[in-house]
């Protein structure tokens, strides 16, 4: 159940990897769409925390182009609905997340990303 909301909060944390380590890039993904309850209040609270460019780029990578490149100032219903879909309904079930800097690979299996580092990678 890696949703884009989670993905938007994750950066690579391997030893020595401190810059250009966000966002992680998806590859070999299996996607499942699962409906979730629409909650505009949550989205409004969450919008200030979103890294917008990372979210849009990742959504496009996964084939969803409903979000505008620039974060709109007006939050209309239609925009919130597409944001809801992108953040909470796209589930990456299987695949790999790769750090853009050190190329460390974080596998996702059964929907749970494994962010554990091997013993030589911890700082």
């Amino acid at each position, binding site marked *: 159940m890696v949703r884009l909301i989670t993905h938007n909060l994750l950066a690579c944390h391997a030893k020595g990897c401190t810059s250009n380590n966000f966002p992680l890039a998806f590859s070999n993904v299996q996607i499942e769409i699962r409906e979730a309850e629409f909650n505009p209040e949550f989205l409004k609270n969450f919008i200030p925390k979103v890294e917008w460019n990372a979210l849009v780029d990742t959504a496009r990578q996964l084939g969803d182009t409903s979000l505008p490149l620039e974060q709109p100032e007006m939050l209309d219903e239609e925009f919130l609905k597409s944001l809801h879909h992108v953040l909470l309904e796209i589930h990456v079930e299987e695949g790999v997340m790769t750090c853009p800097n050190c190329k460390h690979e974080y596998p996702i299996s*059964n929907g749970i990303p494994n962010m554990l580092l091997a013993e*030589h990678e*911890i700082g």
Partner: protein
Amino acid sequence: MFFKYLIVFAQAHHEFRIPELQSVAKIHGFDISLPEGEIETDRPFMIVGLQSENHARQLAAIYEFYAQGSTYEEVHVQNRANQALWSRYKLNTSFKFFVTAFNHKLPQTQQRQVVESFSYTDFMGKIDMKNPDIVLGCFEEYVEKKGMIRDRHDDHGQFRQVYLGRWIEELGSARVLIKTFDVKKRNYFGNTSMESEVSLLMANQTLASPGKLIYDPFLGTETMAYPAAYFGAQVLGSDIDGRQMQGKGSDRAPDLILYNYTGHLLTFDITHNPWRCGGLFDAIVTDPPYGVRASAKRLGRKKDSVPKGWRCISNIEAILAHDSPYIPPTKPYELSNLAV
């Protein structure tokens, strides 16, 4: 303006009483005025001030306060003085009057005497024990005498304080949730799953409500996450060991449906966490690992556990080739190192 209300607390977790009241008031956006001075949280009754009866409905076991005293004479005097509060129920209102005692058992005859002593209130409506329009409650509070031998009829009437009030029907008590979230009813739980009442109390402390993002860094079997999600918050959780979160096969599925739960799960060691910078979460709620049954672990190999033949951990290629799939080793960790 504040009106006085009497709260009859549940007899468990009394340290949580005041914080719980404050967070419920905060979630529902109303003010509550607590008694001045030091509050004895282990006493079961408390008089608080609320601005309207609608606010009181958000709380459970709450009574419109009429009178209190250390003797019935004091109560009657005060109750007569507060006649304005109850005189509107004199005509055409069916009622029920009950007397109960805390730390004591009142015999029927004495209960009856107490009820009769309020005959001056002159309620004309009919007495209805099943579906009354109003319920009046009288509570005697006795000093706890645990472990002391005493005669059955000792102490009758020697109470510490007595309270009188009219019951206010709550909109929905969260106490039923204690049963809903009962660990024993789950299909899937672990040996250190948190007991449901405490997990609900803790979820309320985080002000969990729709619109919040709440994180649990020691997710385990997700006991802390279920109530927070139930109150409408989005829940993110992580654990160093992904197996407990995942369950075996479809073990967890019925629970997830029961609690209408969708959490976001991750596997990592909180002492090496991958969160990017920025204030990401509204609250963190967790049951951290301590003690023997679930001890704290972090990534790393114990010095003496490097297998023979490998000179040092830096020979990582050999280790990776040997353990396939590679599962990073963990070592014990002092919880006190984690607490700030």
